[in-house]
């Protein structure tokens, strides 16, 4: 029995395995960062359309945005990963070897990323919308009274305030997205969780006992848990610090009577 545990921990002394896992971690972080960045871009567009396209001419876009947001927010990410893997087209630009990955891997990675981006966009759209709604009507009036048109008003006055209001929520969303990206393991892409699963499925070769043991599951998944925890806990400490700073800054402002 002790032998199995020793064999399992023994795997962790292999630098090849560590490199494999750490590369997976890097992919996890990169995929999540891309998903959040593009999520902010698309989410903002969705939020703006949902909030402000009221005129009859553009109402169709508003309904499209509402449908998109509600559909993606109320269905599981895993479903969209499976759907994208089957139906999502991959442009030639991505369908070849890169970053030391095979064509099959880059293709799957691209599809799964699209699913994550689509899903994250809908969540971030609602976060941004919360930020937009917290900007007082007077700001729109001030902008209009100075002669800013709708786009200028959004770019220079409303969106900066909206983003400032939701910085903590957006940062927390990065943490959620990093965790969500583990769903990608289900379609055998190359991020942290799938790599850990791949090592586990071939652990009989690496641990030297010829079998895959319960202790291997424990050690490898423990490893994955530890890595996710370290990244996300570090991020949440940063979020906490930013929140504390904002609170401090806000309390030094004199409260103005409304």
């Amino acid at each position, binding site marked *: 029995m002790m032998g199995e545990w020793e064999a399992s921990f023994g795997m962790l002394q292999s630098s090849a395995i560590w490199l494999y896992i750490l590369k997976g971690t890097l992919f996890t972080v990169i995929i999540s960062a891309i998903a959040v960045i593009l999520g902010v871009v698309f989410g903002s567009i969705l939020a703006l359309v949902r909030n402000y396209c009221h005129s009859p001419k553009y109402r169709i876009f508003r309904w499209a945005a509402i449908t998109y947001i509600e559909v993606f927010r109320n269905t599981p990410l895993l479903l969209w990963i499976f759907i994208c893997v089957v139906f999502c087209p991959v442009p030639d630009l991505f369908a070849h070897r890169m970053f030391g990955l095979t064509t099959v891997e880059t293709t799957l990675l691209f599809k799964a990323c699209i699913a994550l981006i689509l899903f994250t966009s809908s969540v971030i759209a609602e976060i941004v919308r919360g930020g937009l709604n917290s900007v007082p009507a007077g700001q729109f009036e001030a902008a*209009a*009274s100075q*002669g*800013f048109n709708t786009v200028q008003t959004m770019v220079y006055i409303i969106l900066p*305030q909206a983003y400032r209001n939701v910085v903590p929520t957006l940062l927390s969303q990065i943490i959620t997205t990093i965790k969500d990206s583990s769903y990608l393991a289900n379609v055998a892409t190359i991020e942290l969780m799938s790599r850990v699963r791949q090592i586990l499925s071939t652990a009989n070769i690496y641990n030297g006992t010829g079998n895959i043991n319960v202790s291997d599951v424990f050690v490898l998944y423990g490893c994955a848990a530890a890595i996710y925890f370290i990244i996300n806990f570090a991020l949440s400490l940063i979020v906490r610090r930013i929140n504390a700073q904002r609170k401090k800054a806000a309390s030094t402002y004199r409260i103005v009577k*409304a």
Partner: protein
Amino acid sequence: MLKDVNLHVKEGEKMVIVGPSGSGKSTTVRCMNYLEVPTSGKVIIDGEEMTVRNHTKLVRRTTSMVFQQFNLYPHLDVMHNLTLAPVKLHGVSVKEAEETARHYLEVVGLSDKAHVYPTTLSGGQQQRIAIARALCAKTKIILFDEPTSALDPETIQEVLDVMVKLAEESNITMVIVTHEMGFARQVADRIVFMEDGMIIEEGTPDHFFNHTENERVKKFLGKILRH
């Protein structure tokens, strides 16, 4: 809301609109820069009729506004509040816009506040910054929508002082909605009294305060001026 309001404001005129709450004073000035879209009737500035199509550019060129709630941009410091519109809308260089801004900060007596954020200022100071912001656009017309109604009593005077100075020293057309009768008497070329969306009396301050025949105005003044 408004019924049959017919106002002609001359260039350089200081017009004060008074009246009880809900009488349509604010709506009237807000129609002048299209914050309220008139359901019928016309707003004509400089001979140009304001329409859905041209209102943004016409407003940009001709009018500025000072609000009851100041509505400064909280994400920008005072200097950027003052230079945003000139730089982004009027094509003024940053350097020139900042020079103008410094000049008007001096006019409102807040030269030392150029680099603080609006929320750190008192209400009176914020409103003076808002007036400076309106001045920086260098428009011929400035609309004031109850500029002192949201202020602490002790800071009202500093804002009124700035407005009196403007009224006396500049050729800017000012349309002012206010409840400050002393101020109205001091700066107005013409006072307009509104009730229920209608103009029921207009005239010089002397006529309005001393010689009006209108019973409703007399009653209003009686209530306001008693104390």
